[in-house]
């Protein structure tokens, strides 16, 4: 009786340590860990081939064979959900990495140089702000065609100012601190000071913003796949699954569309909990 909880506790222990003992954050980290494992080891974990058609199971509800049922083409929903975590996480990951690097470069450059550089970069960021990320993605899809590439490029650009604005303001604060001045007086080059001292100090807040951005990017990319602009059927992807599954809703088959919907919500919630807890910890450390 006690064996299972004990084991579970041992599994969660490292996560709980990272989470600082907070149960909610531990749970969020656990969700993310499960997702990453599912995405990486999908072929070994998924009970079925995500593209295998079992016509006899078409739009069946939950059965022992198909735990989350099968979709309108008779494909196993659970397996597609597990495989869907791959595109679901990969797209936002690229967006977050590129936009974070881009944003930090812009923000730190603006803060460090000030003057004309700052006002040009700030104007540019404002300009991108007036372009909703999804709209930019839709335009790029219209120009370059459907698929993940155009949306990921569009979002990397559109999300950069969120990081850039934060990086700029944090870097401005850090720059004003005496220790940076001391390095300058000692004749260190601007690049070295930025990379070795400024970045590590602003990194935690940027990380928090990036974790929250990950959730938003996931929602936006899934929306594009839902519209048919992103990941294309028959590839298993949460947004595309909702698109394909929504006609079956009216026939009373909820799982093909609802299961990926719930997966999206849970993932985004987990990312925002982690992001907010990082931001909280930074705020507490500052005090």
């Amino acid at each position, binding site marked *: 009786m006690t064996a299972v909880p004990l084991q579970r506790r041992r599994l969660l222990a490292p996560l709980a340590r990272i989470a600082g003992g907070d149960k909610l954050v531990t749970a969020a980290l656990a969700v993310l860990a499960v997702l990453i494992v599912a995405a990486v080891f999908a072929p070994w974990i998924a009970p079925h081939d995500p593209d295998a058609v079992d016509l006899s199971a078409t739009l069946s509800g939950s059965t022992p064979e198909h735990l989350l049922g099968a979709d309108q083409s008779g494909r196993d929903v659970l397996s597609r959900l597990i495989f869907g975590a791959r595109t679901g996480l990969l797209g936002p990951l690229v967006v977050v990495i590129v936009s974070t690097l881009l944003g930090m470069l812009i923000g730190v450059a603006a803060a460090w140089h000030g003057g004309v550089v700052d006002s040009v970069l700030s104007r540019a960021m404002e300009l991108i702000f007036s*372009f909703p990320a999804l709209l930019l993605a*839709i335009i790029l899809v219209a*120009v370059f065609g459907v698929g993940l590439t155009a949306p990921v490029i569009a979002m990397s650009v559109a999300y950069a100012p969120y990081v850039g604005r934060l990086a700029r303001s944090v870097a401005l604060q850090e720059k004003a601190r005496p220790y940076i001045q001391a390095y300058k007086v000692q004749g260190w080059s601007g690049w070295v000071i930025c990379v070795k001292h400024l970045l590590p100090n602003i990194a935690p807040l940027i990380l928090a913003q990036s974790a929250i951005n990950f959730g938003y990017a996931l929602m936006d990319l899934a929306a594009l796949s839902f519209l048919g602009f992103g990941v294309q059927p028959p590839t298993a992807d949460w947004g595309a699954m909702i698109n394909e599954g*929504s006609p079956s809703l*009216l026939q009373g088959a909820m799982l093909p569309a609802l299961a990926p*919907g719930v997966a999206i919500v849970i993932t985004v919630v987990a990312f925002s909990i982690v992001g907010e807890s990082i931001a909280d910890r930074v705020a507490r450390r500052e005090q």
Partner: protein
Amino acid sequence: MAGFLLRRIGGIAVTLLVTSFLVFGSVHLAPGDPASFLLGGRSASPAAVAAIKAQYHLDDPFLVQYTKWIGGVVTGDFGKSATFRQDVGGLIAARLPTTLLLIGYAGVLILVGGLAFGALAALRRGVVDRAVLVGTGIATATPSFVAAIGLISLFSVQLGWFPAFGNGGGFGDRIYHLTLPAAALALTFVGLLARVTRTSMLEELGREHVEVARSRGVPGSDVVRRHVLRNALGPITTVTGTIVAGLLVATSIVETAFGLSGVGQLLVSSVTVKDFPVVQAVSLLVVLAFVTANLVVDLVHPLIDPRLSHAKGGGA
């Protein structure tokens, strides 16, 4: 104030100019010949090719093309749709009422729901507050298309209270048809607004002037209305800019999900069939609406916070 207004409008003009330039120029970024791209890869008669070339002045230098195009846009001439063979302006005008009604409906839901839940959480700490926090956390993480399928499966399929598709005819029927779409559109923003309202009100509740008002025998409800809610409006107004931007784009998703023929759905279907003149026009309109909304927010903010009306310019 006049100087501030002029500077802001100047900024908007620059934004629109750059945006229109990018939107127009993107045609030339596309792989292949602009004429065949604008025809959406449809095999076209030489006459059609000539027409599109004439419409976009494709034989002129790029800047001349742009100037002629933007000259048309300013006078309301967005060119002709490649698929509908109609004026783009007319296509949009026919669909605008549905979209505006949808946004207005969602806006009311967001305002009422966001303020009510936010205020409730701030004033009733404990169980209610925690429930609102959990609810809004989930709401903000629910994209509109997920909300759409959730609402359809519950209210259309299971309960059969609301229709899942279509615009409806007549005002009452339209509102009825738009209820689920508006709710789907509103959900995530209700969460966002409730969070902002809660934080902002909690901050105000801790202020000295609130206690002072209580110490003077002002009834609790008046204290909340005149001092807490009133003062919390500043951050709430600021977040409406974000909400408007999100709403404008999310209409394309919600209209598609519910099969409403609105401007958003027009954008999506035009991208699908590569009807570029329509994509250009709708994109410009969205950006215009967005910057206008932000201008309104900037103009309204000093009315809410008198301390801002004397500040010079207003920085951002």
